[in-house]
């Protein structure tokens, strides 16, 4: 099979040389110029400007060149996997820090072990649940985790005499009160597909203290499809909310941009989303930060308590694939040390993000909504239960079927468990 892959590559290359400059060789990045090298960096197009500025600053300070290869944030995982599967490797890979996504890169074979780097010791217990597997740290996480919860329109809730809900029972009660006022209680974005999995994930968080439920699923000591399992209960609660008319009528076509606009304009009362959505919310408010601050609040939500859920995100999470080129590998390591070293404080300041490395001061002038997010996170956040489980990417399409009434919660859970089993076996996880 490997031989045939090489043959296919050679054939494709031979064909392409008919029209293009050629494969490998001249086009290959990483040529050295007096010890200075060109590094390829596959990066998410959603990288904020301050992060891109850090790439440029590294170039200025190191003399190396970074060739940015943009991976569209829409379909980010698919596109990265597609390039990765061809055997192509960047010198630096920006990608998800969740273990489920890390496993799909086959890290022990393809990624360099960064366990001994100084930033790991300065990151608290971050790498106990992210960017590491098999006792080795592969990621360099510089971005604050995505914090998931419920954004709400303060005025709309106040007008309906409703307090921000912290549990699903409270959410149901709020739904009834808001519906009576003619407001869409919760705006869901089935047109963007992925956002509709957030509410079930939030539901499960009350059962996932210290990632207990996630570990049980990943370790195969529990099944998603166990009758009455937190996951099945989460899907059932979601379905009940839908049946009660809590969601927008255009749930199957609405996008997350629509949801942000509906929230800011008060057409909808609540939206389940994560903290990295704040720029989209600002855009929906026409760039008026004051309007966002005055209008929007944030609260934790789960089945039984107001806890927020977090998941390490892809923005600012870097991996170093093995390339076999000593010069470029050293330069790539220098990049990680630069990003996690003295320059990190400047990044935190300019990006107005919260630091994940100890000994670095938080940013000034943070918006009140983001302060709400941070406060909720500091009060005890729970990692999203799917973070360590491979094969969970199938949840979003299944939610689409659940919403369309094609699958009931139990059947959806059974099917997802099948996908988890497929991935866990492929990943060689213990217990499968």
């Amino acid at each position, binding site marked *: *099979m*490997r031989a*045939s892959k090489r*043959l*296919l590559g050679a*054939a*494709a290359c031979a*064909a392409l040389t008919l029209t293009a400059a050629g494969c490998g060789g001249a086009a290959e990045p990483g040529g050295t110029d007096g010890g200075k090298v060109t590094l390829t960096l596959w990066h998410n197009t959603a990288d904020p400007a301050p992060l891109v500025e850090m790439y440029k600053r590294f170039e200025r300070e190191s003399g190396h060149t970074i060739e940015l290869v943009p991976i569209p944030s829409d*379909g980010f*995982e*698919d596109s990265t*996997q*597609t390039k*990765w*599967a061809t055997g192509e490797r960047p010198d630096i890979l920006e990608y998800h820090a969740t273990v489920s996504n890390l*496993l*799909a*890169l*086959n890290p022990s*074979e393809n990624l360099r072990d960064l366990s001994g780097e100084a930033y790991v010791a300065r990151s608290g217990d971050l790498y106990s649940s992210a960017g590491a597997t098999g006792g080795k740290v592969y990621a360099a996480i510089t971005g604050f985790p995505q914090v998931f919860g419920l954004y709400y329109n303060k005025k709309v809730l106040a007008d309906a005499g409703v307090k921000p809900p912290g549990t699903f029972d409270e959410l149901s009660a709020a739904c009834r009160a808001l519906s009576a006022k003619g407001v869409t209680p919760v705006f869901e974005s*089935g*047109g963007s*597909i992925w956002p509709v999995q957030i509410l079930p994930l939030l539901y499960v968080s009350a059962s996932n203290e210290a990632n207990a439920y996630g570990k049980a699923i990943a370790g195969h000591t529990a099944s998603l499809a166990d009758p009455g399992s937190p996951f099945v209960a989460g899907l059932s609660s979601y379905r009940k909310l839908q049946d009660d008319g809590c969601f927008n*009528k*255009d*749930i*199957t*076509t609405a996008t997350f941009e629509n949801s942000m606009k509906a929230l800011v304009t008060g057409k909808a009362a609540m939206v389940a989303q994560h903290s990295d959505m704040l720029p989209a919310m600002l855009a929906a408010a026409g760039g008026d930060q004051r309007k966002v601050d005055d209008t929007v609040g944030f609260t934790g939500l789960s089945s039984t308590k107001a806890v927020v859920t977090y998941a390490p995100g892809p923005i600012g999470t870097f991996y170093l694939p093995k390339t076999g080129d000593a010069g470029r590998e050293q330069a790539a390591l220098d990049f990680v040390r630069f990003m996690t070293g003295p320059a990190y404080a400047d990044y935190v300041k300019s990006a107005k993000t919260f630091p994940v490395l100890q000994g670095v001061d938080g940013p000034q002038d943070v918006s009140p909504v983001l302060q709400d997010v941070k406060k909720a996170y500091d009060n005890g956040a729970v990692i999203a239960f799917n973070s360590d489980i*491979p*094969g969970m*990417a*199938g949840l979003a*399409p299944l939610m*689409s*079927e659940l*919403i*369309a*009434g*094609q*699958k009931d919660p139990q059947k959806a859970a059974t*099917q997802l468990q*099948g*996908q988890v089993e*497929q*991935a866990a076996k*492929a*990943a*060689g996880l213990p217990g499968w």
Partner: protein
Amino acid sequence: MVTSLPPRERPPGTETAPHAPHPADGGGGETGDPGRRGWLPWALPAVLLVALFFALPFALNARFAFSAWTGFRSEITWNGLDNFRMLVEQDLLTNAVTVTVLYAILCMAIQNTVSLSLALALQRTDRVNTVFRSVFFLPTLVSPLAAGYIWRGILDPAGPVNSFLGIDWAWLGEPATALLTVAFVDAWKWSGLITLVYIAGLNSVPRELIESATVDGAGPWTRFARVRFPLLAPAITFNVAVTLVGALSAYDVIAATTGGGPGDHTRALNIVMRQQWGQGFFGSASALSLTVTLLVIATAVPLVWWLRRREVTG
């Protein structure tokens, strides 16, 4: 949209109907043995292209459909029909094949009906018709993804179509209309091209035959049904094959309009393939790809054979 044709396919409009020799072919008709001599040099470039870009990759890739190939490990091992079994167990394969075939039939039917009607209306070459032909051809030049995103906006429940009709309906979000609507968008995108082929076909019908039929008292409908339509057979072969086969390998328009939803109502094979690939399940993605290829071959070969046979006997 696949626009390539089997190498033996001749451009429509240059086809010669057996029972109606085209004036331009010198009356050679089907007896033209000299035309068949020395065909190899002409066919060679096409044969080479098909061999290099279709047959070789197909032969090399087909085996991955029967392999345990994932992003989770480096080894690629033979696993027989496991990928197909897994796809069936997860309710993915059967639905995807059904959706794909249904979508292809809808696309083929809509495009050919619309295009033939347009071709009849725009057949005569004059200034006004030339403008309209260009207008109807313009969508062909638009990127399918862009076309999808544009129509997604137009068909939004709060979009201009519903505003005009005064209704509230999620065309792309309701199971009853989603697949049909996406097929319509695909038809909008490609009908201009198919129309041009039909116009070429209609213009290749000898004028004297039409005139004879008219003199014999045939009305417009009879002239169309008994004279022009049978002589359109080569153009129909081309258009039916291209629209059907192209829609079997659909991805872009569906991805941009519904992403496969609502539920799995528009989840065609290539949409599921992309989802499997994105999860690192490359073996099962390859199995879906192979299914698309086999579906195309199983449809195109008998279809083109039957339609060509119909050209001869029709």
